[in-house]
């Protein structure tokens, strides 16, 4: 009894690609025709399947009459049968048409009744991947910065390191910028002391601008034991509301002035930087090497950015909107999680995926383009390339083998490494075809563009 209707499940569907629409160049439409008889049979089959497990008061499980089951679950079975049939027919239509579907399915809702001549007619639409033609990149010019790490750069780095390791020595002279001072202060607002406005033995370094500027420079010119009274106007957007925009009076007593003393560049200094035998020349070499590594990484990323920008500019192709939408969704979620990590309440924060659409568009385009290049020019990541990359990264760690292992034990991490290799392959491929122009750049302005600007 169970099997009498199971024949005729083959969807005798014909897919006829309808006229393509101009609005979205990637959207394709197919018309699916599904015989009503097939749906009816499938519905019956599903009802029988349900009947075996349905529970109803007054009946032992599985003994519920089919008529009752059909009444309870008939429409459910029907829509399931219909959606299954649509899915199957759609898959077939896609195979027949050899579409590379990107997603974004839209299926026109159909009524319960067959439209005409015992057939369900379903309009289905979806987006396909764009055809990308890789263009000639001959006249594209990539500017590759050339930066040499000179002695001056090394010296400057040493200078920074010295400042970080400065010790302070008490002096008997008026305080200057860069000195560390110990002060007592009492702050009053309209003659009344206010909360958080007073402190004793408060220590800070003048000129590090962690304080309001008036307060920061107040001790300048004062010796230990001297006093000064001055006004501080709090900015309008100050953190404490009762103070914002107001002017308070401070009385400040300098108790101690200490001048910074930079460590000598000697064996001791070298040791503190991790050079075990205290060899200063070796220390300089190490610093130079690490600077060179940094410069190289910076140049690589700069070149990579340019290459990708040029590739995107050269290749104009439509982007499947469904992919953009899901990418934007992902970006929005990441941003939300990021905010949450920083301790913000995100639940009632409306993060609209629309904000990320432009970025998503770029990512999807780049992703498709890279995939296409990789496919056409066989730039897949070779295992030995991945290995080399991971080992190179591992060099910066104390225990390189541990990092290598860490990467290889999780396919997702390995996938990330592979993605990097593929990117590098594509960049290398592009650079072979593009014209590379070298441009000497000054070390300082290259590494710290913000300062130089």
């Amino acid at each position, binding site marked *: 009894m169970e099997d009498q209707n199971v024949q005729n499940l083959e969807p005798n569907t014909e897919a006829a690609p309808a006229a393509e629409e101009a609005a979205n160049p990637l959207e394709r439409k197919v018309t699916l025709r599904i015989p009503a008889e097939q749906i009816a049979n499938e519905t019956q089959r599903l009802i029988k399947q349900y009947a075996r497990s349905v529970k109803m*008061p*007054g*009946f*032992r499980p599985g*003994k519920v*009459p089919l*008529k*009752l089951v059909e*009444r309870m679950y008939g429409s459910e079975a029907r829509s399931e049968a219909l959606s299954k049939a649509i899915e199957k027919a759609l898959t077939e239509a896609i195979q027949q048409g050899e579409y590379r579907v990107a997603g974004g399915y839209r299926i026109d809702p159909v009524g319960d009744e067959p439209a005409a001549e015992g057939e369900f007619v379903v309009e289905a639409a979806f987006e396909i991947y764009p055809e990308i033609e890789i263009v000639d990149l001959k006249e594209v010019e990539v500017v590759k910065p050339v930066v040499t790490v000179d002695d001056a750069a090394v010296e400057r780095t040493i200078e920074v390191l010295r400042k970080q390791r400065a010790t302070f020595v008490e002096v008997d002279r008026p305080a200057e910028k860069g000195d560390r001072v110990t002060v007592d202060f009492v702050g009053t607002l309209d003659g009344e002391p206010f909360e958080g406005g007073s402190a004793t033995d408060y220590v800070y370094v003048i000129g590090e601008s962690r304080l309001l500027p008036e307060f920061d420079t107040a001790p300048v010119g004062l010796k230990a034991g001297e006093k000064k009274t001055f006004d501080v106007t709090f900015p309008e957007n100050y953190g404490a509301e009762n103070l914002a925009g107001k002017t308070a009076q401070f009385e400040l007593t300098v108790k101690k002035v200490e001048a910074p003393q930079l460590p000598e560049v000697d064996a001791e200094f070298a040791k503190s930087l991790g050079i075990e035998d205290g060899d200063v020349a070796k220390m300089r070499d190490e610093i130079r090497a690490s600077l060179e590594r940094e410069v190289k990484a910076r140049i690589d990323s700069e070149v990579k950015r340019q290459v990708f920008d040029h590739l995107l500019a050269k290749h104009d192709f439509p982007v499947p909107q469904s992919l953009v939408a899901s990418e934007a969704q992902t970006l929005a979620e990441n941003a939300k999680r990021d905010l949450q990590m920083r301790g913000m309440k995100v639940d009632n924060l409306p993060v609209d995926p629309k904000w990320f659409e432009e970025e998503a568009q770029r990512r999807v385009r780049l992703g498709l383009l890279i995939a296409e290049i990789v496919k056409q020019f066989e730039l897949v990541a070779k295992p030995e390339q991945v290995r080399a990359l991971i080992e190179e990264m591992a060099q910066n760690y104390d225990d390189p083998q541990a990092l290598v292992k860490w990467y290889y034990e999780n396919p997702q991490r390995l996938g990330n490494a592979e993605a990097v290799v593929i990117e590098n392959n594509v960049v290398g491929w592009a650079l072979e075809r593009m014209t590379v122009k070298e441009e000497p750049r000054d070390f300082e302005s290259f590494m710290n563009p913000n300062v130089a600007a």
Partner: protein
Amino acid sequence: MSALKERHYQVLLAPVISEKSTMLAETRNTVVFRVAPDAEKHEIKAAVEGLFNVRVQGVRVVNVKGKVKRFGRFAGRRANVRKAYVTLEPGQELDFVMGGSA
């Protein structure tokens, strides 16, 4: 007629839908109702004929005593149920399952 109609609705409470009732409907042309505890056979016959527009051959009734249920030391009792097995005349039909609404 309206006063009588009202009694009809008071007499018939609900159809009994179970394996047994389905079987009876198929083999004996009999439908089963839960009826009011004070309903009499002739009332039931009149109610079924009046409400469903069928001719009734006979009515048999049964009182089902509610089970005694205890919860801890408290004894309780489920409500008694009166059922009516209504046999229709041959050729008459009454189907509650497929939309044979009252």
